[in-house]
């Protein structure tokens, strides 16, 4: 209904291939960015940043990374938490061991390390498929859980086993107030989302999807599964690693291996499923959904002042999550992103149904 596409004809492939070919979409996204970068920092309360916005941004980034692997390349991974952990601990080690290591560089290097580990654990994917791979990725999860718990060197021999960072700053600007942290994460997310989008709409992205959709056919047209899968693992774990770094440095400040346990891996997987496999936008929907839902569930009782003890509440949350996963897999396997795009199509065709 809101779309007016007459006269929006394309006279060059560049114009036809841009990310948002429709003017109205470009306007919408521009507005969104303005709101995120300007309006929210001025208006939102501090609680919102700490409890919702910052986790949302970082987890979206992680989900984005995972989505590249699972959604685009079809290689399921249950070990995402591990790659986040690697990113976080590596970044930590770079900062504590190298004097004056800039934050951003540290985070990116963390991502690089995650990439290395990701590729390492991705190698089995060349021989083994689907379910077997899923389990194989758990190896990464448990190994890293153990490594960061038991190998003191990683935690810089801290007694408690937990590590902490402070006095973050970029180019001399401190990153300690929620707003600063929020903007810092926002910047990362926007840049990475753009890069990721470019990748998935380029020929590498097509190779990933080809492998996902019909690997034999993909091989026959000359796509090398090795290359496609390993690049997917690499890119995915790089982004996830950086997200891990942000999670540790910016969101938590001090953390233990438990912060990146297998539950984190599942949480991210759920984000991707609910948000939409194979959709950049979906990663954001999924993250938003899974970050906000528990908070709502926790608060519902107070809104309707029905006293529920916290244990029960958390159990209910579990049940609802489980149910939702199944629900989405059955009703809309492509998640919220698909619902969104169908809605958009309806608007474009309005008043016609099809």
């Amino acid at each position: 209904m809101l779309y007016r596409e007459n006269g929006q004809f394309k006279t060059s492939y560049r114009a036809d291939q841009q990310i948002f070919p429709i003017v109205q979409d470009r306007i919408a996204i521009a507005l969104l960015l303005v709101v995120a970068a300007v309006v929210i920092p001025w208006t939102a309360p501090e609680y919102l940043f700490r409890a919702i916005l910052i986790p949302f941004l970082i987890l979206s980034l992680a989900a984005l990374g995972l989505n590249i692997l699972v959604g685009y390349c079809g290689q399921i991974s249950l070990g995402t938490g591990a790659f986040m952990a690697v990113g976080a601990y590596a970044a930590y080690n770079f900062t504590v061991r190298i004097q004056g290591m800039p934050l951003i560089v540290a985070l990116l290097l963390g991502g690089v390390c995650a990439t290395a580990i990701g590729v390492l654990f991705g190698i089995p994917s060349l021989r083994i498929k689907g379910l077997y791979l899923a389990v194989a990725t758990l190896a990464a999860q448990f190994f890293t859980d153990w490594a960061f718990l038991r190998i003191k060197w990683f935690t810089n021999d801290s007694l408690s086993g937990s590590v902490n960072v402070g006095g973050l700053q970029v180019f001399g600007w401190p990153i300690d107030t929620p707003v600063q942290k929020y903007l810092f994460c926002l910047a990362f997310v926007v840049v990475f989302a753009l890069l990721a989008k470019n990748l998935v709409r380029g020929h590498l992205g097509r190779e990933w999807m080809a492998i996902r959709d019909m690997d034999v056919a993909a091989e026959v047209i000359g796509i090398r599964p090795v290359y496609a899968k390993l690049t997917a693992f690499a890119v995915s774990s790089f982004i996830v690693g950086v997200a891990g770094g942000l999670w540790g440095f910016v969101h938590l400040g001090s953390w233990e291996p438990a912060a990146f346990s297998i539950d984190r891996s599942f949480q991210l997987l759920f984000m991707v499923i609910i948000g939409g496999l194979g959709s950049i936008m979906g990663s954001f929907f999924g993250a938003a959904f899974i970050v906000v839902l528990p908070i709502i569930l926790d608060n519902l009782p107070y809104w309707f002042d029905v006293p529920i003890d916290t244990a029960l509440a958390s159990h209910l949350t579990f049940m609802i999550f489980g149910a939702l996963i199944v629900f989405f897999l059955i009703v809309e396997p492509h998640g919220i992103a698909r619902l969104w795009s169908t809605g958009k199509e309806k608007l474009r065709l309005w008043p016609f149904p099809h």
Partner: protein
Amino acid sequence: MGAFLETLIGGLMAGMLYSLIALGFVLIFKASGVFNFAQGAMVLFAALAMARFAQWVPQVIGVQDKLLANAIAFVGALALMIVLAWLIERLVLGRLVNQEGITLLMATLGITYFLDGFGQTLFGSDIYKLDVGMPKDPLFMFQNVFQGGILVSKEDLYAAVIAAALVAVLSLFFQKTATGRALRAVADDHQAAQSIGIPLSRIWVIVWSVAGFVALVAGIIWGSKLGVQFSLGLVALKALPVVILGGLTSVPGAIIGGLIIGVGEKLSEVYVGPMFGGGIEIWFAYVLALLFLLVRPQGLFGEKIIDRV
């Protein structure tokens, strides 16, 4: 030497239990192509049910005889697992027919979460001890061979025996009975199975019930050993590498795999662990399985995968 044998035997016994859980995976995978991640949750759920029923039965219907009480509780728990199996088929699998393995796996992840939440909502989330009269006292063997002999926990021994028996029964069930053959047929080709008039849904209910039964037994054994608590669900995570090692589609694979992992784990913990500051059995099994996969992607006894185009 004695110490080695001790560890070895300990490993074999632990391995037996792994195989038991692995069996649950294999059963379901063979029959419905579902990699049932929820097996662990089912173990927890079953164990919780069992433990709580065993408490309630005396209070509610005042049966004082412990054995009888446990028996009733067991039947109750089993019934519950069957209902659960039926519900899962009805509400989840029945609606995901002919979906890819990955989708089904994720579905079972969903089920896992649901069961964890549901079980604890129903039965509470404390630690419950579960006493089905497993002997706790140790047993000394081969005293004449080694001086001091080898210490074996009777409980483990019983457990191992039960597990072994169950494994035997199930493999017989698979090979011999009509249902068993039907299950295999279904596993091989859904359409074909349907076309020769095997009712998929019923088969699935059966399989999941059997898996539920296995889970219950496993739950009882582990539960009486460690007490019933949330962490019980994680036992399943230990069984995963077993399945991978043995091959998703092979019952014997599950057993052998279980033993290998069990032994390997214990031995490594004792002989390799110290080098890394211990606690390595968490990942050892996985890495073992992983390395193994690189050599033989379909596992020990799994069928070779051929892509048809």
